[in-house]
C-alpha cells in the first residue's frame, strides 16, 4: 500500500530572510567559528 502525504509549499519571502540576517549577526558576534561558515557554535537564547 502507498501512503501519500500531501506537502504544502511556502513562498519564499523577504521577511524570513531579514530574520535570518539578524540571527546571522548574532551568531557572528557570539562565536568566532560561525563567522566564516557558521556551521556550529553557541546560539543566542531568547
Amino acid at each position: 500500500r502507498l501512503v501519500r502525504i500531501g506537502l504544502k509549499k511556502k513562498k519564499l519571502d523577504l521577511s524570513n530572510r531579514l530574520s535570518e540576517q539578524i540571527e546571522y549577526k548574532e551568531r557572528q558576534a557570539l562565536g568566532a567559528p560561525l563567522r566564516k561558515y557558521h556551521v556550529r557554535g553557541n546560539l543566542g537564547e531568547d
Partner: protein
Amino acid sequence: TDIIALKNFMDAQYYGEIGIGTPSQKFTVIFDTGSSNLWVPSSHCYFSVACFFHSKYKSKQSSTYRKNGTSAEIHYGTGAISGFYSQDNVEVGDLVVKHQDFIEATKEPGITFLAAKFDGILGLGFQEISVGKAIPLWYNMVDQGLVNEPIFSFWLNRDADGEEGGELVFGGVDSDHFKGKHTYVPVTQKGYWQFDMGDVLIDGQTTGYCSAGCAAIADSGTSLFVGPTTIIAQINHAIGASGVVSQECKTIVSQYGQTILEMLIAETQPQKICSQIGFCTFDGTRGISMGIESIVDQSVDKSSGGMHDAMCTACEMAVVWMQNQLTRNQTQEQILDYVNQLCDRLPSPNGESAVDCSSLSSMPNISFSIGGKLFDLAPKEYVLKIGDGVAAQCISGFAALDIPPPRGPLWILGDVFMGRYHTVFDYGNLRVGFAEA
C-alpha cells in the same frame, strides 16, 4: 553535532502534517532526509518565544503517551533545540506508528524557529545520525509492517500555487509524478542518504572537479544545492552571481581603495584601518532595518563587546591583501585591480550569492553526473526568486559550504535538485534513485 549541524532551515519551503498522541494532536513538520530525529514543541516549553507561535505537544492529553524523560539536544546550522524524549503514537497519513520516540522541545532559541512556518522536524535519515540513537519513525514504520515496500519517495512541485506543494509517498512511488526510469546509485555511507556523484559540468563543459567522484547527499530539508566553496565559486561566477561580501568588498575597493593604500603606506596598522574608515564600527546605517539592527546590536554588544558584519569582514580582507601586494612592489593601480579580482572569491553569509533576475536567459545549464547519467538544471530551475514585483530578489541555487573531513567534502542536493528530479529513497536496497519530475 558535526553531522546535524549542517541544516539551514531559512528557505525551507515544503511541509506536511502529522499527528501525535491519542486523540491526535496536529503538527506541521519538515520531512527531512538530512536528519533522523522527530521533534515538536512541548507544552513544557515556557521561555522560548518560538513555542508561543507553534503547536505544542501536551502529553497529559494523550492516552497513549509513555514517559521517557531522557534529555536531548540538537544543533542545527541556524538554531538549536533542546528538550527531552517522550514516546507516543504518531499518525502519518492514514498510518499510525506506535511507540515512537520523539523529542519534546522545551527550548527553541533564536529567530529561525520563531519565524518558521513549521512546528517541528521529522527526520528520514538513518539511525546512525539520530541524536540519542533514537529509532527513526521510518524504521518503526517498516518494522511494524505498515508499508509493503521499504521505500519512500518525494515529489516536490516547483510550480506550486496553492495547496499542492508536493507529495511524500511511503511504501513506494507515485508514477504520476515522474517520467522514464529512475537512475539508482548505492548508498555509500549510512547516516545521510549519501552516494557518489561524478563530474560537474557548466554548459556541457566539464569542470573536472568531481571527475574522480564526490560524496553527495539527497536532503529534502535543505533548499539549495550546496557544495564546496572552490567549485561553487566557479559555478556562481559562470552564472554571474556574486556574494554579498564580494559586492561589499568591491564597493570598498572602488570608494576607499586609494585611501587604504595611502594609510598602509603611512604605516597605519592594517587592523585599525577598517575601524578608522568606519567599516568596523557599527553605526546603524547598514543592513535592511535600522531599528531592528540597533536592537540586535545592543544585545550582542552586551555579550561580546562588539560585532563584525559583512562589510567589516570584506574591508579587513581587502586591507590584508593590499598590504601583501605592497610588499611585492606592485603599483597602486595593479594592487587595486588585483584586490578587485580577489573580492569575487570571498564567501558570503550563508554561502549564498545574488543574481540578476532579468539575466536568466543568458545563464548556462549546470549538469551533474550521477550513476553515469547527466542531470541538468536550467537557470529557471536553479535560481530562487524571493518576493514579487520590483522588490523581488533572486539568489543563486548554488551555495557554498565547506564540510570538513571525515564527512566532507560533501555536496548537498536539496530541494532545488529534488524539485527537478523525483527522488526515491530505497531503504531495502540501500540506494537512491532520480528521475525527471
